[in-house]
């Protein structure tokens, strides 16, 4: 929009064409009009009513939060008719106010007949000048996307793991010794740490600007979430959503990018954000809620939002008051209200079992019609502590039905912890109880059997304090670590707490849990079940003096195939077998691979600087790999999604296991000989190179000596001829000397 007269190439008096310079320094007038709005849909009035109308409009604007005065309104006048044109120009203080007024007043019903239509003044010109001819948009070229689960198609069936060392993140393949290789590596890939999504599809890296997801075989960018200074992340179980947390409250600076993927002014001051992984859109933000109590103990609970197993709901507890459950994907409060529970401390969702998932899939596909079981409703368990005249209580509630399924009252409770078995078959509530004097603490396990009618509860009473509890995945056993060490609770340098490890198993028929075996006076403080059950590792982690790893098999006598059926006949607890003991100095983490065949232990530089690195063991405790690496930080197995094979197919495989294993063994043998042949050839080459070099050098040396007029190699000969000197050493040792006086 050039001012009149200087537009185009009109030569001025001297005949010089200044148009290029003028175009360059032309004042951008549009910017000056940013604070002016054009409002359409104003009643057409004559002079007499004008003043009243303007006052009314100004009032309406002010009421909506965009204060203007009648003087700021310009009314274009139709002189011929003596009436207004039905439009007005409104001048606001600045561009920001104008944007606000635009949003507030657009579509505002002024009266029954008139509705305001608000536009920016600057837009009108643009829309008027819009080219009306239709130009077909260029069709974007189709770029085939990489398969995000390509790693599962590895012909050798290997697993992957990620390591983070110094500034370098590496993704490794892990298989047989010859198949281990680095799949990908990138320096400075992350600022804080890396994390896999729960099904292994993405790897997330954390940066100052936010979270970045990577995936596919070439590790391209998949999605980004702009949450500045993000510190913690948490995926939903089916990796549809992502929760991020930053210690710094969200700020939206002026001129920040806008859109569904970015924070808007309403989000300011919050710390937690929920994102949709597929679109990258921000769904909702929350402030951090710290648990009640004194400030010194303020510790963030993470994950702050708890996901139901099917990704349909996410819950958040406000300690002492309520549990708020939001529906996905709208992130609206389910049922428009939270579940008000006086005193609630914590809750957990019930996980989905394999059968539940099948039922859900069947229901979703509509196959089997009505014959299929109705999928189980979501369930959650929460507990409330003792308050005046009311016992502590554990409650099982279904959702979204919100009916209470089972409640159990508890007395003398200090603390409760909820442990779901991963198939959702059992719920164990670990109740720390105190004696009347409140001096000593002991422990009760309240075990709910979820699959049975009326949810029967079994109590296991223990005398000691339980420090760790874990269910066998997909199993009917659990392991717990208990201790009566007086040093428990006051850790100090050099103190290693003595513990006992106990295994319990469900007795079929009777329905209660019976002790299988107790391993006493250990130092183990961590139990790691193999993800497929049966194998378990007891580890002493975080101790400066002990770092033992014990590998146990709980079904030693039975074959994997006939495991569930045949185990009851044998003597109780006889199947527990110690497989091996290993030691990884200064271990800080232990993790099973998804197949349950290997265990990885690592010593992270985040905890200490002693012999950082990682080791991989097989399930018997044999060391397969060990790497001691300076500034090693993180080791993570890549999770695998659920198998796509049906139960029938899996059974088939198990039945023909012998067949397959023979095939694998042949492959192994072939490969082994192959590899060693390669290695031998390589060594042979190195030796040949060396020998050739030595031969050349020796000749040079001989030449050199000859030139110097020395006797050649005579020294060497001389040396060998030197007669060996035999040294004979006689050692007299008096062992005992007895003086006897012989009496006559």
């Amino acid at each position, binding site marked *: 929009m050039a001012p009149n007269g200087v537009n185009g190439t009109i030569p001025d008096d001297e005949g010089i064409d200044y148009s290029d310079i003028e175009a360059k320094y032309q004042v951008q007038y549009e910017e000056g009009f940013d604070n002016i709005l054009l409002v359409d849909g104003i009643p057409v009035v004559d002079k007499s009513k004008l003043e009243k109308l303007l006052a009314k409009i100004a009032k309406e604007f002010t009421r909506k939060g965009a204060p203007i005065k009648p003087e700021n309104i310009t009314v274009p006048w139709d002189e011929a008719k003596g009436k207004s044109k039905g439009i007005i120009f409104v001048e606001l203080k600045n561009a920001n106010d104008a944007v606000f007024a635009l949003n507030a007043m657009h579509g505002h019903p002024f009266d029954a007949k008139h509705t305001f239509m608000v536009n920016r003044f600057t837009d009108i010109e643009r829309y008027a000048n819009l080219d009306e001819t239709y130009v077909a948009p260029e069709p974007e070229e189709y770029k085939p996307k990489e398969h995000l689960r390509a790693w599962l198609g590895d012909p050798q069936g290997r697993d992957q793991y990620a390591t983070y060392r110094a500034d370098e993140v590496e993704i490794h393949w892990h298989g047989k010794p010859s198949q281990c290789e680095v799949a990908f590596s990138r320096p400075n890939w992350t600022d804080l740490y890396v994390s896999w999504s729960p099904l292994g599809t993405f790897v997330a890296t954390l940066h100052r600007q936010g979270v970045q997801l990577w995936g596919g075989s070439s590790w391209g960018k998949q999605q980004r979430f702009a949450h500045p200074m993000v510190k913690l992340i948490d995926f939903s179980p089916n990796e549809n959503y992502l929760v991020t947390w930053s210690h710094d409250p969200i700020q939206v600076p002026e001129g920040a990018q806008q859109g569904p993927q970015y924070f808007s002014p309403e989000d300011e001051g919050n710390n937690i954000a929920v994102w949709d992984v597929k679109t990258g859109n921000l769904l909702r933000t929350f402030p951090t809620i710290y648990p009640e109590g004194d400030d010194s103990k303020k510790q963030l609970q993470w994950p702050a939002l708890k996901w139901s197993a099917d990704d349909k709901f996410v819950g958040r507890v406000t300690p002492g008051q309520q549990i708020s459950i939001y529906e996905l994907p709208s992130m609206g409060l389910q049922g428009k209200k939270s579940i008000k529970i006086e005193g609630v401390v914590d809750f957990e969702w019930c996980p989905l079992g394999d059968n539940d998932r099948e039922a859900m899939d069947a229901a979703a596909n509509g196959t089997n019609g009505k014959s299929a079981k109705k999928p189980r409703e979501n369930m959650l368990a929460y507990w409330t502590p003792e308050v005046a005249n009311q016992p502590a209580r554990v409650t099982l509630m279904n959702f979204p039905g919100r009916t209470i399924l089972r409640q159990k009252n508890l007395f003398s409770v200090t603390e409760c912890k909820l442990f779901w078995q991963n198939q959702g078959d059992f719920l164990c509530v670990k109740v720390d109880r105190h004696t009347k004097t409140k001096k000593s603490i002991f422990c009760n396990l309240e075990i709910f059997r979820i699959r049975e009618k009326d949810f029967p509860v079994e109590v296991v009473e223990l005398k000691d304090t339980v420090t760790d509890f874990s269910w066998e995945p997909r199993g009917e056993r659990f392991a717990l670590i208990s201790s009566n060490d007086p040093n428990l609770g006051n850790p100090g340098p050099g103190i290693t707490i003595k513990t006992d490890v106990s295994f319990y198993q469900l007795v079929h028929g009777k329905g209660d849990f019976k002790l299988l075996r107790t391993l006493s006076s250990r130092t183990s403080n961590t139990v790691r079940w193999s993800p497929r059950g049966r194998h378990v590792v007891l580890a002493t982690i975080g101790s400066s003096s002990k770092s033992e790893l014990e590998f146990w098999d709980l079904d030693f006598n039975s074959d994997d195939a006939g495991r569930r059926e045949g185990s009851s006949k044998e003597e109780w607890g006889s199947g527990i077998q110690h497989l091996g003991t290993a030691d990884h*100095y200064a271990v800080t983490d232990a993790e099973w691979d998804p197949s349950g065949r290997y265990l990885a232990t690592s010593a992270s530089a985040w905890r200490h600087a*002693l*012999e950082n690195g990682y080791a991989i063991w097989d399930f018997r405790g044999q060391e397969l790999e060990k790497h*001691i690496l*300076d500034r090693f930080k993180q080791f993570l197995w890549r999770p695998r999604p659920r198998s796509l094979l049906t139960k029938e197919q899996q059974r088939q495989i198990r039945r023909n296991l012998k067949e397959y294993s023979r095939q694998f063994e042949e492959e192994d043998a072939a490969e082994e000989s192959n590899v060693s042949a390669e290695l*031998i050839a390589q*060594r*042979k080459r*190195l*030796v040949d190179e*060396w*020998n050739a*070099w*030595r*031969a050349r*050098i*020796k000749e*040079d*040396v001989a030449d*050199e000596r000859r030139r*110097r007029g020395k006797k050649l190699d005579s020294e060497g000969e001389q040396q060998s001829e030197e007669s060996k000197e035999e*040294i004979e050493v006689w050692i007299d040792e008096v062992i005992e000397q007895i003086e006897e006086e012989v009496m006559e």
Partner: protein
Amino acid sequence: MRPILLQGHERSLTQIKFNREGDLLFSASKDHIINVWFTHNGERLGTYNGHNGTVWTIDVDSQSRFLLSGSADNEMRLWSVQTGKCLYVWEFPTAVKRVAFSEDDDQIVCITEQRMGYQGVVRVFNINRDGDGTNQSKEPVSEFSPIGSKATLCAFAHTPGVILMGHESGKVALFDANTGDEIQSNERAHMDVVTDMQLSPDRSYFITSSKDKTARLHETRTLVVLKTYSTETPLNSAAIALGKPYVLLGGGQDAMSVTTTSLRQGKFETRFWHKIFEEEVGRVKGHFGPINTIAVSPKGDCFASGGEDGFVRVHHFDESYFRAKPYGDLEISD
């Protein structure tokens, strides 16, 4: 392989050396004393008293007649191995960091430290082997100051008149003994201080150790790096095994930080690496401080290590060491 522990020093070891027959072991220490031991049983034969400062370096001639030592009291001394008498004393403005005999025992080279305004100087002396050895010339046959980074190590190279030098910058160089000119150099042989330098028996190649956690094998004539052995700890010494294709590396974290970390983390082990394949073969532990110096007997039947802890450990190889062929039947020349 039960080691023989030689407890004759009150302070940390600086250099140990076998004589040519391998029956005697000489050890120098910061406690000013030089000891000589019988290798086969660890019995102390005697001491060489006289230095008034840390003895940094020793060398013995091939006939086990003369012993040469350099010390922080700015003296270099010549001793009679047999009697322990001091035969001659050379005095310099600064400490003597390294001494070495030539192949024919008729010359010696020494290097003095660059300090207190004095330059580091390399001096070559002729040794008068006639008589009782007390009649030595005070004046060097040649002397020069290598320019650039501080030089700390020296030895006679493959040909007479050429001196091999190791520098603090990680540089390794060859100098002409007469003119002091640099003949050949490898500026980036190491990334940090070169801590030790030992030549093969025929002086055609040599091994260096460095604080940059690596040891390297070089060809003497060209200074080309033949092999690199990368460890995870700073190295103080490296030696070439004889008769077997191994190299021995020793080191550990700095003496300064020893007290603040565990024994386990110190990595105070002698490491055996395969000379050709650049792979670690095994470790021998025992010292509770960093290893400062390693020596291999010229007979190849034992090795010794001297540590910051003040002990020398002599290890005679077991029968199995000679029998074992961990890499199969491969003919490897020395």
